[in-house]
């Protein structure tokens, strides 16, 4: 007996976590709950990356999405005026429209997902750091630099926009 059975169990748990948290984000009628459920969903996605042997990607997933993005969203929510009543998000009132938009996209996503059925097994587990570093800093070094300059420009722009006049 070995622990081969453990992996499918974890996979099932993580899948349930991702899907139910994702549904909760849309269905919950309080925006803070949605934000927290989103963080939970991100954590489960990180768990998926660990199962696939991509530990580094999992770590960055948690570091950036759970540690930074969710906090910033919560930050934004707190500065937004809150009504005393529980309120639905605006798109919850547009179910027919949402269905029309979502169904065609869902078909393509499902087709895309099933196209991986005959994909080869994932490679050796737990050593994705070096391939990741090589591809980011060597193979795709130039696009990486372009993206970082773009982000820098965006940051400077944001600072200029919010800076008060010195009068």
């Amino acid at each position: 007996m070995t622990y081969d059975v453990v992996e499918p169990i974890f996979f099932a748990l993580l899948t349930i976590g991702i899907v139910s948290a994702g549904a909760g984000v849309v269905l919950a009628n309080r925006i803070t709950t949605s934000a927290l459920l989103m963080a939970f969903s991100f954590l489960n996605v990180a768990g998926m990356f660990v199962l696939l042997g991509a530990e580094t990607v999992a770590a960055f997933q948690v570091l950036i999405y759970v540690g930074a993005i969710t906090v910033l969203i919560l930050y934004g929510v707190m500065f937004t005026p809150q009504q005393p009543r529980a309120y639905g998000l605006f798109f919850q009132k547009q179910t027919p429209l949402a269905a029309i938009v979502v169904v065609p996209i869902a078909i393509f996503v499902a087709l895309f997902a099933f196209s991986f059925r005959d994909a080869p097994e994932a490679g050796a587990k737990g050593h994705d750091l070096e391939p990741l570093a090589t591809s980011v800093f060597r193979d795709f070094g130039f696009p990486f630099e372009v993206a970082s300059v773009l982000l820098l420009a965006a940051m400077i722009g944001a600072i200029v926009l919010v800076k008060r006049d010195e009068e």
Partner: protein
Amino acid sequence: MPEGPFGLDPVIWAPLRLIIAVLLAVGLVFNGALAQIYLERKIQAIIQDRIGPLHTGPWGLLQTFADAIKLLGKEDIRARLTDKWFFLAAPSIVFSPMIASFVVVPFAPGIVGANLNIGLLYLTTLGSMTVLGIVIAGWASNNKYSLIGGLRSAGQLISYEVPQILSLVTVVLLVGTLSMVGIAESQPDWRINFLILPLAFVTYFIAGLAETNRNPFDLPEAESELVAGFLTEYSGMRWAIFFLAEYGEVTVVSAIATTLWFGAWHGPLTDRLPLLGVIWFTLKTYFFVLVFMWIRATLPRLRIDQLMSLCWKVLIPLTLTNLMVTSVLLLAYPSSRIPVAIANWILLGLFGLAVPFFQRRRLASLRERLRAAAA
């Protein structure tokens, strides 16, 4: 059938090892917190010329136990207008990443929960999850002081993560691995990284103080301005869990500093008796815990704008410069570490010299403004 350690079947040994590791981590955090609270009281008492806990048990040793029992016995209070699930979830969101951090701490050769090859990244990741718990605690309490504490904490922790990670990266560049065990093994005998990268250590320690909400960066809870910040509505067990998490994080930050800059388990006689490494590691870690307490007893709290300008105008440019200089020198002299060490000590010296200079200029400008206001 392959045999695991102690003649156990690996199938039994794997979960057993997990249980032992978790129990040890929990025990370490609980006992460590008890010891640290006692130490904190005694050390602050000594610094402030008092006696400190004295009457409960010999030298007041049982005072912390008495306090812990009192906290456990307290009624579990939750104000009616708090956000129930968030309020209950916040302590565990702060506590669980801290416990999980102990998995990769290398206590001695072979005594480590898991030798992850991304150990250091894993630790920073877990450190970043604390913010979420504190922000949620501040939000769920439905109290303006708590909310201000939570928002301050979000700004502070996210900002100080940048210099913290940049300081860690310089060490990783030097050592060439993210594994905590690998970093520990790279510094045998006296050749510790502190001699090569002192500036990175100083910036990491300052950022670590901010990341653990300790003085002089304890703005999220600032008793004198915000009641108790995000902790205002918490009492009894839940409050205790927040404090356990804080002391645990202090231990984790100290353990990271020990591993990265001070040779982890290496010390006299560890070649012959590897288990002695545990003692050396604990002693080094607790030395930094004591420095945390010493700083707490001697420095006043920063104002929020000072806190932010210290991070964005001083620490981040400094760590970025350090990172650039270190990486360029490591590329230019791949075989020798002496140029890196010289550059780092020079940068540290410049930093040390610049502090009083800027302080004097700032004081002069403040006096100028006061005079202008009086006139």
